[in-house]
């Protein structure tokens, strides 16, 4: 169970973690400045298990992976948004920050209220009323990376399987992805 921190559209990575703090890669230090230029109360007030709820295009701007790292290190359980910017989406999956696209929840949820999130089911439950919101499921390819706990472990297994030999040859890409267009309009591959 956690509380909602609610923000608007187009929350960019510069306000999630300003460039002036990018002289470090230490997650705890990045977390201490998370959302600083948008909401100075966030870093000191956020508690483990809280969620960020935001509008469209969350994470737009810079490719800095420091942004999802800072949010995760701040204790945020997941980010729920109407939509995510492409690079942020990949980065979040890659570093293990759960994210859910769920416009209904974004409309309904208010700052400070309590929610329960079931990441496996992709459901968000409003504690006060029991009302439940269903997020779009991750496409199969993305689930595979998540099952590995992120891209680092996914890569570790792949490299080990190849005997740590760098591969130049193109893989059977369409086969690996479950056939052409098999992932549908899901989010993977952004």
């Amino acid at each position: 169970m956690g509380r909602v921190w609610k923000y608007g559209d187009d929350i960019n990575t510069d306000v999630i973690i300003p460039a002036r703090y990018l002289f470090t890669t230490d997650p705890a230090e990045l977390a201490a400045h998370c959302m600083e230029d948008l909401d100075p109360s966030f870093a000191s007030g956020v508690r483990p298990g809280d969620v960020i709820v935001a509008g469209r295009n969350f994470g737009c701007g810079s490719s800095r992976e420091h942004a999802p790292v800072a949010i995760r290190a701040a204790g945020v359980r997941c980010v729920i948004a109407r939509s995510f910017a492409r690079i942020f989406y990949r980065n979040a999956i890659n570093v293990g920050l759960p994210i859910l696209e769920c416009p209904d929840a974004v409309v309904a949820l208010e700052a400070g209220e309590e929610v329960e999130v079931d990441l496996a089911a992709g459901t968000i439950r409003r504690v006060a009323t029991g009302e439940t919101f269903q997020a779009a499921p991750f496409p199969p390819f993305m689930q595979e990376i998540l099952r590995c706990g992120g891209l680092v472990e996914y890569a570790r297994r792949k490299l080990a399987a190849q005997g740590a030999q760098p591969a130049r040859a193109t893989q059977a890409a369409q086969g690996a992805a479950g056939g052409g267009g098999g992932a549908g309009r899901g989010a993977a591959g952004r």
Partner: protein
Amino acid sequence: MAAPRPMTITEKILAAHAGVPWVEPGQLVEVRVDFLMANDITAPLAIRAFREMGATRVFDPERVAIVLSHFAPSKDIRSADQCKVAREFAREQGLVHYYEMGEGIEHALLPDRGLVLPGELVLGADSHTCTYGAVGCFSTGVGSTDLAYAMATGETWLKVPETLKFVYYNRLQPWVTGKDLILYTIGRISCDGATYKAMEFTGEALADLSMDGRLAMANMAIEAGGKNGIFNPDQRTLDYVARRAQRPCSPVWSDPDAEYAEVYEFDAARIEPQVALPWSPDNVRPLSEVERVPIDQVFIGSCTNGRLDDLRTAARILRGRRVHPEVRAIVIPASRDIYLQALKEGLIEIFMAAGCVVSASTCGPCLGGHMGVLGKGERCVSTSNRNFVGRMGHPESESYLANPAVAAASAVAGRLCHPEELGIRYEEVAGVA
């Protein structure tokens, strides 16, 4: 092998790098990469992820570049330590394309050195990697962990994007540049108008654009959320590449009957110089409709507009004039090569005589890093690409994005200013360095 469907240039490049005859939007592909790049901010995280993955060698030391440009020359001990991590990795891996501080901002350096080429697939751990689409390659920004995976394997996975086509009819008006066209476009479609999509730029107005102007346009595709920005190569592209290419390449072009998710048609003759007001690159107005607010600083530089064309334009405005006494003006050539050429052409002397600060190549001011950070309530006209809250310094500072002619004129006037307000006629200065 004939493809069973017509494809856009983006689709053709992805198909070729997936080793399949054709692809379609929405499809996931695992693709071979031709070139990779990281900078001093993103490389340290990528290097850590690379090691955690159990990787020991990059897939090809000739195809991974590390460029020190953000906090370089280093502004403090901690950024020096980050540069050191990147530097030591480059040496350990024997990276052929390691570029020390001052060599240039990555997105100016790589195209100019012929390291990113038509038909290629390029990833960079920097959102403005989309710049290289100006030469007809697929290039996109990724995070550090994605880059680490590609460094280790020479591959990545991508979803084939839908393509948006932007057609610019007619001829450009005086003072209107690639920067104005892309600002106008972002203003029209908003900062998530192209999210997950390819932006393909075409039309007769672009035939007039120099490579520098096209690089500025592709650079800002990310400001509309675009996965990549791309131009079909023309003779100008091929000439540019022929003088620089460090390896052979295979240009491809969109089929005439390729499918687009949407086609936007703009009359370039009706577009005037544009300005993005705080605090988003999509908060765009024609300069004629923008209040002439007083300013504290002007920044001419960055991966968007620190190229030779941009410096020549700014110099035409500043020649024989003085920067307003209440304004600080900073000019940063985007690479050492550009700096040297600007020296030869006398541009640096013009800037210095006008009272500008001229710095070695760095991304510093653009991201509020160093060399021009804004204080509380200060206002800057910048040729860079972002004007988010706190982007260039204090969260209560303001940045206005504009082309180099407008920025230079504003430096002289002490307020937002069109060059013609200074009595400068385009015909008199065009083509004069």
